[in-house]
């Protein structure tokens, strides 16, 4: 039977989270859309009951037209050989708050710190929300869609003139020879 492992994972999820949306994206990839208050229960069930010991990554998408942030939690199971991408949408504000899952997975601390730095989402329950990679950064979170990198670069850095006068003089001198 096709997608046997994937369907078994979906059966597990369906038994508890009845309102969630499911989709088999491709072989070994399952997408689940949850409501925003379900993620801790979901992560707990994944880790303890459904044999998903590995949190690969947490990523964030800025849907500026919907005025929402989408957090994507990627879980991997070594035995079932399936990646589950759990998607959660939270309202887009200046400093939105969301719950941390760092008590279940230690690596989540780093992922959440990174998202806090790049998108400005504060994770309650994560005690370490310091700067992670952009230690010298003072501006707004740079991966948000309303942060315009070109404008920022033009305003904050010095640029050289590509064709200055002294170069024209040199070029003219070269032509005369």
């Amino acid at each position: 039977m096709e997608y046997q492992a994937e369907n078994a994972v979906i059966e597990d999820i369906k038994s508890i989270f009845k309102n969630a949306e499911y989709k088999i994206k491709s072989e070994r990839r399952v997408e689940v859309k949850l409501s925003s208050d379900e993620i801790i229960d979901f992560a707990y069930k994944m880790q303890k009951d459904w044999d998903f010991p590995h949190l690969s990554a947490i990523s964030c998408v800025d849907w500026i037209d919907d005025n929402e942030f989408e957090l994507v939690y990627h879980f991997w199971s070594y035995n079932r050989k399936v990646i589950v991408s759990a998607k959660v949408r939270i309202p887009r504000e200046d400093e939105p708050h969301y719950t941390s899952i760092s008590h279940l997975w230690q690596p989540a601390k780093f992922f959440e710190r990174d998202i806090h730095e790049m998108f400005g989402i504060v994770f309650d329950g994560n005690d370490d929300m310091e700067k992670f990679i952009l230690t010298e950064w003072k501006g707004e979170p740079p991966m948000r869609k309303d942060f315009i990198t070109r404008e920022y670069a033009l305003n904050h850095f010095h640029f050289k003139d590509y064709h200055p006068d002294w170069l024209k003089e040199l070029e003219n001198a070269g032509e005369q020879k």
Partner: protein
Amino acid sequence: MKQKITQRSAWDRILAKLNKRSLWMLHYCTGCGAIELPPTMTARFDMERFGIVPMVTPRQADILLITGYLSIKTLKRIILSYEQMQAPKWVVGFGSCTINGGMYWNSYTTIKRLDMYLPVEIYIAGCMPRPEAIIQSFDTLINRIDKGVANSWKDYYTNYDFYRKNQEKVFGEIETYNDIKSDAEKFGIK
């Protein structure tokens, strides 16, 4: 262009002769340009025939080769390393990223012009410059040292306020461990 050759004492000329054949390059690589250094160091192009060897500590190095783009985070470390180096010292900007940002010109974390933050002696244009270009720039540097015109490092002491202002514009308040003003007095530069 005619270079203005200042009057130098015999001792200065001897120093320049010795200096130009024992240049040590700080082995600090930023960005992707470092990939051109292994062929420059090893048998094919062999920069050691000019007396240039990689050196691991800034205090014993003469050349600071900036190989590629400089993020703000790296620039802070570069400035710390540069201030630890003993004068005379020379900065070589490598690749188009150090000249005008290169392909990272609209990035929010890379600085665009290296010469706003450190005094640059020579730029090597290109993305990437080949090892031949690096060897040629070292050759130019050696000739300039011999003539006594490679004095860009003095600019850091005379125009320190300018460099400091630009550095602070990027970092805000920064700590420095070197007293530049008193160093300038030591070298007799005002």
